[in-house]
């Protein structure tokens, strides 16, 4: 276990003073950050939020990807009606995640295999009927 001498390290202590640290103080005197060309952002009109806490207003911008669907979607919709401070919401969302995986991996596979089985049975039946 080597012990390093701080003064051998390039840049040691350059931010030692609190006033040289960009995150101090934690809260700044209020002023816009970045270069926002608005006082308050206008609302998004394209698409619909794909995750929305019913206790909150729709935010001016939101994600629109991967909307809710199937049984997992129904559970997620119910979960977002539960306040976020209740563990029930998070347990429901985790359960929906597992169902989502089944819906989108195992169900399509089972459907594909089922379809293939029906097709093979149909072909065999047709061939036998010809004889």
């Amino acid at each position: 276990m080597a012990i390093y001498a701080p003064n051998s390290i390039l840049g040691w202590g350059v931010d030692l003073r609190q006033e040289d640290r960009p995150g101090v103080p934690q809260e700044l005197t209020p002023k816009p950050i970045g270069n926002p060309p608005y006082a308050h952002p206008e609302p998004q009109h394209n698409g619909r939020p794909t995750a929305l806490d019913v206790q909150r207003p729709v935010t001016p911008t939101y994600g629109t990807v991967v909307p809710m669907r199937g049984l997992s979607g129904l559970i997620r919709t119910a979960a977002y009606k539960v306040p976020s401070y209740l563990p029930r919401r998070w347990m429901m969302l985790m359960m929906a995640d597992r169902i989502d995986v089944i819906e989108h991996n195992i169900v399509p596979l089972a459907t594909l295999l089922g379809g293939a089985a029906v097709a093979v049975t149909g072909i065999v039946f047709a061939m036998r009927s010809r004889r």
Partner: protein
Amino acid sequence: MKALTYRGPSTMKVAEKPDPRIEHPNDVVLRVTRTAICGSDLHLYHGLVPDTRVGTTFGHEFTGVVEEVGPGVQSLVRGDRVLVPFNISCGTCFFCSRGLTSCCDNSNPANDMVAGVFGYSHTTGGYDGGQAELVRVPYADVGPMKIPADMHEEDVLFLTDILPTGYQAAEMGDIKEGETVVVFGAGPVGLMTAKSAWLQGAGRVIVVDELDYRLDLARSWANAETINFTEHGKHGVVQYLKDITDGRRGPDVAIDAVGCEASGSFLQKALGLSMLQAGAATALMWAIQSVRRGGNVVAIGVYGPPWNLVPLGEAMNKGLTIRAAQCNVKRYLPHLLEHIRAGRIDPKGIISHRLALEDGPDAYRIFAAKRDNCTKCVLVPKAA
């Protein structure tokens, strides 16, 4: 476009997805030039973050070239090279205007815990991430920063998350000259934290992990002392840290740079796996137990809702100050860019793997299994 998509725990797939479009006047669409896999993406990959939907594209560390510009955007034009903070922030709300961009009130309709984040489940707003050829970036006048013409994407890629996150972790530790800082976790954020602790005047920086190759990097890249906690028996690292510090008091500052997938405690792991808590909080537990009385503990590793098992009584009786946050990336960018320019930090020095976007599923497997001495994976889309 091609995008890496989540198919279920430990399964990713490259798929064709519709190109993102301008959905709000202040959006831009970027053609991604570099994108990294973050340690916190592994929490998603392992199915630990609520509302992680099949088909989602991860990735909150990326650079890109502006491809399409919304009618309200004033600071960027097509062709600009930019890096993008992982937080999606409006710049004007109660929180943003106070510098707390990770708490923005105007980007996450899913809850009031955290701002929107790129590619980090629908719990952070349902935005796709940058592990794709194209990505939609809201509030483009606020978050993105133009990459200086003389700098390469990989010089600045980690300004999007892990470098400011590590720096803020050290900063929240309120390090005073000569103090001893212990960082739990020698992953990318832990390494950046160790490096930042030196810049902030630490007298001794100790990094704790279980992987020797990462501890080697902590010594060579971050000049830290290292401890492999597996060499000190069950929870023995807590006593060992006390033994090697002045007055056997323990470190002055202890930082958890691991989060909810920590090793080292069977009980923590079992409670996490049985969903009785949100993952294993071993690193935070050790931070509280090892730090000196009156010391500072920082939680910068990612935890999800609803709760975790930590020794709160010990924290209270020892008079600790505990601070925790998602990083407010934007306010650190100019300052840390200067450190990179001056050679005080070389973030790209921790990149261990560069792969094509199409090899993303392999990259996740390698990173998750910590195979092939993997520390940090960067994905390069074809058009980059």
